[in-house]
């Protein structure tokens, strides 16, 4: 009897046994007391009605517990009627609940907001916040008393009236002060918007949808050098990062890709080549994305490039990149091979099949199982509500995807094992990760374009962990781009403090490490942004450590500023 091909498959192919995980995500949204609802247009007839939804974890009062800032947006109709967008700040009550402190903090109406990132631009130890807007940016100085002040104009950022999307603080010139990069998306005027369905570029599978970004003009980007006096100077052109081609910038992040001690810059561009600006150490950058293999997918095609995840998922000591994309464009995983060479290993890593059908946004590499290996997640949601009417069966609301690390360079998609929250269909955008309740169990906070947010926290995790909150002294105060290397049970892990990431969002600045069965780390090192390596020795597991540059582990009080904010 002739054997069927199905037998060939079963007998001869090395099939990986189905991956089982004990990890579960509990949806705690209802019990948190968070009632924020993101304003959205049901029809999303204009592109700016689809692109917002970034959020930030920011411990604004430095009590050691992450608080949450949700960015608020508008519909075109509301904007034309003069309505103000409502953002929201929720204070962490340390008991699983949050309190709305938006009005008191003075951050209710920054603008029609797209995203938010955290940095300490005046080095006073109080984390400040930059909100990117449809119409420039808003810089909120943290006053150190639970309030913020809009210092956009006095900081020299008031000249930006473009559609700001991604942003990231980082000390690119190593002077100990965080500089600021802001990219911009499409150049649009509310008074003269391209009409829904009016051009070839306003169709999706034959149905009328919002126009853009293809076919619309883009906007340039800005790099602001920190003047150490509360102001910035625009150095975009001289630095070579002004985006003369006006590509559609989205998420951006600073990172020392080539381990030269100088920060490089990665910028996601929607449907266009990403930028990988390499820092020459003299204030100038050169884009090397294409030749490095991170500008396009493995076939040289430019993808949608929305959310950005960084992580050393294979313990090579180098940060790899995962980028979320549009549907029919798999999530791209670029493995950092060193010497500015990246390989698109998405297929081999096993993440293409699950990600291909969905429009991906916020994402991240985090060790939710505390196994010592970074997992990967992405939240999804279509751009066009009208897809509900197309024949391809697309949905506006989409599920979230979770991949556990197989420890061999591949991932297994286990979304259906980690609890119903990941299967709940939503129109998600930003997603950030942090240890919200200081118990070593990571949570994901998702800002949805439509409706309220979702907060899910890891459960069923028995492994050990440790976390680090860093304070720079010679380095920028929040220690942005400092790295921590943890060696436990013979395995060395690397993590880094980043401003920005995911989709126009900000993860918890504290660094989390899973230690699996190890109840201590044999060695912990901090590589400060200036390159100095500080050895913290062996540390016990299951604790959050505060580290001050040059002083090692210190009580938490010692890394918290003693004074009110610097003006």
């Amino acid at each position: 009897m002739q054997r069927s091909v199905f037998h060939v498959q079963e007998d001869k192919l090395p099939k990986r046994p189905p991956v089982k995980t004990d990890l579960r995500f509990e949806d705690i949204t209802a019990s948190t007391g968070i009632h924020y609802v993101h304003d959205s247009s049901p029809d999303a007839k204009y592109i700016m009605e689809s692109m917002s939804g970034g959020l930030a974890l920011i411990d604004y009062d430095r009590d050691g517990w992450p608080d949450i800032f949700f960015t608020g947006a508008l519909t075109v109709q509301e904007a034309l009627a003069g309505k103000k967008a409502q953002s929201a700040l929720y204070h962490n009550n340390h008991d699983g609940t949050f309190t709305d402190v938006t009005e008191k903090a003075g951050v209710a109406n920054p603008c029609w907001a797209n995203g938010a990132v955290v940095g300490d631009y005046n080095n006073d130890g109080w984390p400040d916040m930059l909100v990117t807007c449809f119409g420039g940016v808003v810089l909120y100085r943290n006053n150190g008393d639970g309030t913020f002040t809009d210092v956009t104009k006095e900081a020299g950022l008031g000249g930006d009236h473009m559609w700001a999307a991604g942003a990231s603080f980082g000390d690119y010139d190593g002077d100990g002060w965080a500089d600021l990069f802001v990219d911009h998306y499409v150049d649009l005027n509310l008074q003269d918007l391209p009409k829904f369905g009016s051009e070839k570029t306003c169709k999706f599978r034959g149905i009328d949808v919002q126009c853009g970004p293809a076919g619309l003009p883009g906007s340039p980007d800005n790099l602001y050098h920190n003047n150490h006096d509360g102001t910035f100077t625009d150095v975009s052109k001289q630095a070579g990062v002004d985006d003369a081609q006006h590509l559609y910038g989205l998420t951006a992040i600073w990172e020392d890709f080539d381990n030269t001690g100088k920060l490089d810059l990665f910028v996601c561009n929607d449907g266009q080549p990403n930028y990988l600006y390499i820092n020459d150490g003299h204030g100038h950058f050169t884009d090397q994305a294409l030749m490095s293999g991170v500008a396009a997918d493995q076939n040289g095609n430019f993808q949608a490039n929305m959310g950005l995840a960084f992580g050393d998922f294979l313990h090579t000591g180098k940060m790899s990149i995962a980028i979320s994309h549009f549907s029919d464009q798999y999530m791209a995983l670029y493995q950092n091979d060193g010497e500015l060479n990246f390989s698109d290993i998405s297929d081999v890593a096993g993440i293409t099949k699950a990600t291909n059908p969905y429009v991906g946004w916020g994402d991240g590499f985090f060790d939710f199982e505390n196994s010592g290996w970074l997992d990967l997640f992405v939240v999804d949601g279509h751009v066009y509500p009208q897809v509900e009417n197309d024949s391809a069966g697309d949905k506006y609301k989409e599920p979230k995807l979770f991949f556990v690390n197989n420890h061999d360079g591949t991932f297994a998609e286990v979304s259906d094992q980690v609890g119903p929250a990941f299967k709940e269909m939503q129109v998600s955008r930003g997603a950030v990760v942090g240890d919200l309740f200081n118990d070593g169990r990571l949570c994901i906070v998702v800002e949805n374009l439509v409706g309220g947010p979702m907060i899910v926290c890891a459960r069923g995790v028995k492994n050990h962990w440790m976390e680090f909150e860093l304070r720079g002294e010679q380095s920028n105060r929040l220690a942005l781009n400092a790295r921590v290397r943890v060696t436990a049970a013979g395995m060395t892990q690397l993590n880094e403090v980043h401003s920005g990431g995911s989709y126009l969002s900000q993860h918890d600045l504290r660094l989390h490490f899973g230690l699996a069965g190890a109840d201590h780390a044999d060695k912990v090192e901090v590589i400060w942004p200036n390159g100095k390596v500080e050895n913290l020795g062996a540390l016990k597991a299951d604790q959050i450590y505060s580290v001050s540059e040059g002083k090692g582990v210190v009580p938490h009080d010692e890394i918290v500023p003693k004074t009110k904010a610097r003006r």
Partner: protein
Amino acid sequence: MRAQSTSLMVLLALVAMGSAAQQPATQAAAALSHELHEALSLAEHGQPRQAYEKVNEILSAHPNYASALKLKGMLLEGAGRGEEANASYAAALKITPNDPDLLYKVGVYQLIKGDRREAIQLLEHYLKYEPKDGDALFYLAQAYHLTGQNDAALKAIKACMEVKKDDPQVWQKYGELLSGTGDNENAVVWLGKAYKADASLNRIQYDLGVASFYTMDFDGAKAYAQKALADNPNDRSSLELLAAIEVKLAEWDDARQSYEKLLVENAKDVPSQLGLGHCELELKHTQRAIDIFRSLLQQDPSVALAHYYLSRAYAALGDSAQAQYEAELHRKLMDATSFEATALGVEQDRAAWEQAKKLLAAGNEDGALRVFKESESGLHATPGRPYFMVGALYMYLGEPEKGLKYLKKSLQLEPKVRGAHTYIGIYDLQQGRLDEAEAEFKAELANDPNYLNASAELGSIRYRQKKWNEAIELLVKSHTRTPGLLIELCDAYFKTGKAQDAKMTAEVIMVYAKDDQSAIDDLLSLLRANGQEELAGRIAGVGR
């Protein structure tokens, strides 16, 4: 295809019907019918050569006797002379255009021959008489599929499945068509069902491999592709599939061997050269990869991906200047492609355009206007747009007077209508009225600063005015792919000392003007005038 015996029976019946239908009113006609039956009788009694001679005899005296032509076709078909048989059937069909059997026969033959649109027309016609003919539905589905009408193809094959409920070949076709529409998950199900029912189906392993590949089940796809190759080691498409899967699985050495096998048969095959170069790059055989990509680009300069890989290869060799050059070239080529849709002056539905063209040719301006009004329904309908479209169409058809009349009318109705100023400006430019043309392009850009054609044309005016930097700015902004304009851009770069940009533009021109020898000649002159002998030599050698 249906079996010959069935065909013969049907044909005999139809020939009989045909002769009856022609109702020979005269004695001569009756005699003719008698002769035909003699030929038929010979065929029935195993004497096809004699039958063939007889029918030729009839046709030499009566060349338009449809029944004789049909019989001749049948005899030729029986002798395995398909092309001649079809010619005979086609000749018969011209005389009896509603003959169902001829519609089917010629329809299927046209499909086999590759004239798919004709096949669709004939099979659709046939199915009006025989709507439940599963074979015809099967072939019609295939014809739709091959012309990219996937929805219609699926509809036809579903109708076929209603008739042929238990036919694995039909399930296979359904699976193949589902795969063609991107529904590979269901394709795998139906192909699997077909395979289980009949493992000997032609190319079933390959079909399963393709569908599995697109569901990203690369391990499964590989097993199918290997099995398909084991069954048919010389099947090129299965080997191409296997190579693509091996690339996906990062099995670079295996993929390299697969591509090398493909190139043994056809050394000039572009995808295989590209694949081989990619494998060599991944295997760190960098110089070998560069040689392959260089050779490929010399053969076909339009392969943008080769520049992408070259960029990575040069970067691996530490030649960052060359890596940057190739990266920028790749970006430029990709950029131009992505702007192709928006760069067109007329972004209109092609069907409406074609329909209106016919109406204008017939002098029916109102009809053409109506077509554009209907195609522009909904939110984006504007009062001037249909008049602009008719004007643009007249300009395209070489009737500028009528075109200008409609373009101006569109501007009266809607002063900001997109494109009208540009079309008028282009006409002014053709007439040598530079100032008037400039005013029109400026008016267009005042309405819409991102109207690409206006930017391109104004850039050309600036070039003629020797305002090199302004020309560069506008031509770059326009994302033009027009060789003439790109040559102006290239020259403007040389004039402003930007040799690197000029060289890169020349490489882009080489892609867009590869079939335009006159543009290539102009480019070569320009390059040589600027001392770029090496590049000129390379461009001159492309495709040779």
